[in-house]
């Protein structure tokens, strides 16, 4: 359909990157897919008016991820299965740290999690993060500090890197 011209091409080109953000924001494949689809639906409806589709989709995903409605819907999603306890002899230290981070991220609020993804995955500045989340820069800073503090409490093993991140 003409009104959606270029939509499929955009999704084909950017779906991997967008899927990664969606997964990081939700920590769950089903929820991530749901989040991405919802953002793409909104983009498609406004397709003829959206000048920067990727920025639009990312903004929708972040805001959707921290919205109260989204959180309510996530309650209905099956819980994330528990990761294996400890590490087997063939599991590298990095994998263990990944698991620890994933478990810790599960315990953060959606906004804290979104702030960390923006700041440490996407390497966004405070200003950019604030614009994407629709909040003030001060909020982004405080949420970042709170999130890192919480990570240190939840996963002391990640303490060094979280302190390093603050610097």
């Amino acid at each position, binding site marked *: 359909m003409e009104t959606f011209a270029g939509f499929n091409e955009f999704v084909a080109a950017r779906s991997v990157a967008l899927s990664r953000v969606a997964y990081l924001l939700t920590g769950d494949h089903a929820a991530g897919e749901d989040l991405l689809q919802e953002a793409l639906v909104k983009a498609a409806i406004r397709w003829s008016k959206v000048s920067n589709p990727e920025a639009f989709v990312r903004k929708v995903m972040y805001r959707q991820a921290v919205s109260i409605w989204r959180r309510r819907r996530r309650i209905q999603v099956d819980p994330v299965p528990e990761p294996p306890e400890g590490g087997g002899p063939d599991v590298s230290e990095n994998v263990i740290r990944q698991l620890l*981070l994933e478990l810790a991220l599960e315990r953060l609020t959606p906004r804290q999690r979104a702030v960390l993804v923006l700041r440490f995955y996407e390497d966004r500045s405070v200003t950019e993060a604030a614009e994407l989340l629709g909040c003030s820069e001060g909020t982004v800073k405080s949420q970042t500090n709170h999130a890192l503090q919480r990570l240190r409490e939840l996963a002391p093993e990640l303490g060094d890197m979280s302190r390093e991140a603050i610097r």
Partner: protein
Amino acid sequence: MNELSKLFRDIAGQARGYDVSASALRVARRRRNLRRIAPIVLPLLLVALIAGVWLPLHRAEAPSTNPLFWLPSRIAAPDASTPDLPTDRAVGVAALVYTPCPQDCWRVVVLRDGTQYRLASPGSQPVHRLSAGLSPDGRWVAYPDAKGDLMLRDLTGRTVVTFPDMRPRAWSPGGRYLALVPVNYRSPPPVTIVDLTTAAAIRTLSMQAPKAGYAMDMAGILDSGELIWVTSEFANIAPPDLTSVPQIPLPKSAQVQITDPGGRQVLHQWALQAPAGSGYMAPTSAIISMLDGRLLVRFTVAYAWGTAAGPADIVDATTGAVLTHYAVPAAAGPFDIWGAAGLADGRLLVVRARAKQPQVALLEHTNGKPQTISEVEGGYGTLILPGNAY
């Protein structure tokens, strides 16, 4: 890149490429189509919703759901073939008594199944044309014969008792007693109490006359035998010509007394205050004793052309406190709202006479909205419902 960023990238690497392009487009098209038709569909849905909610409620007021199951929804005009009330057998309980035309008509009793019987021809005096009564349970009918004597007939049997020169005044709500007063009297009237279990007069009592300028009348009787008296500031009860237009204005207040069955001791006394725009007009069933001990008091509104039914209150019999208020639609003329009648269960029936299609309308308890429950064909002069007496 610090360690945290690296870990985030490692985690992100676990993400699959979510193939949601087709589904997103499908949902987007559906939503877009919905937005296009919404301006048309939403008003239609709104109309349907209103119709769906309102119409069933509206229909609920139709005669099919008539809460007064005993009142036929349509009462045919009597004709020459209408039989006289048989004296040799029971006919069944009645729903109402009425005269199908204003003057010189035979009085007709209508049973609950719609069957009609002619009663004796009314006497010559105007009061005889008006006066009649029907017990709250529809069992007893009281009416004057051609000589003006009161006939008390048990419709569920063959008992007929005559009380010379009397007229019915009030029934006790459970149908235990009937209070009679003389056709003509000076205030206060001597009251004769009839025990309906035996159809015999058990006592006659007279009250002391009120001070000058006041009129005292007997307004009701309870199943305990206690009597309700009303003293108002002037007498528009003025016998003997009850068909004359009452004095205007009507009294705004009256004093209610409830006495023991012998009328010797006042048990309760309180002031009856008429709602704004109305007055208390004694005595024609203006006070109805309810089965639960409360009283239903009807008020009257005076118009230039006469009087018509006004608002009504359900009051506490011991204190006079207003418990429920009924608003009655204003009469548009002498042939709009003709009158009202209270029932022993607390309901108020408005008798609306419009042109040649008089109707009996039940007033909603909560908002005073009338709903037609019965249509009386051919017009009428008087219409008496169970528990009422005129």
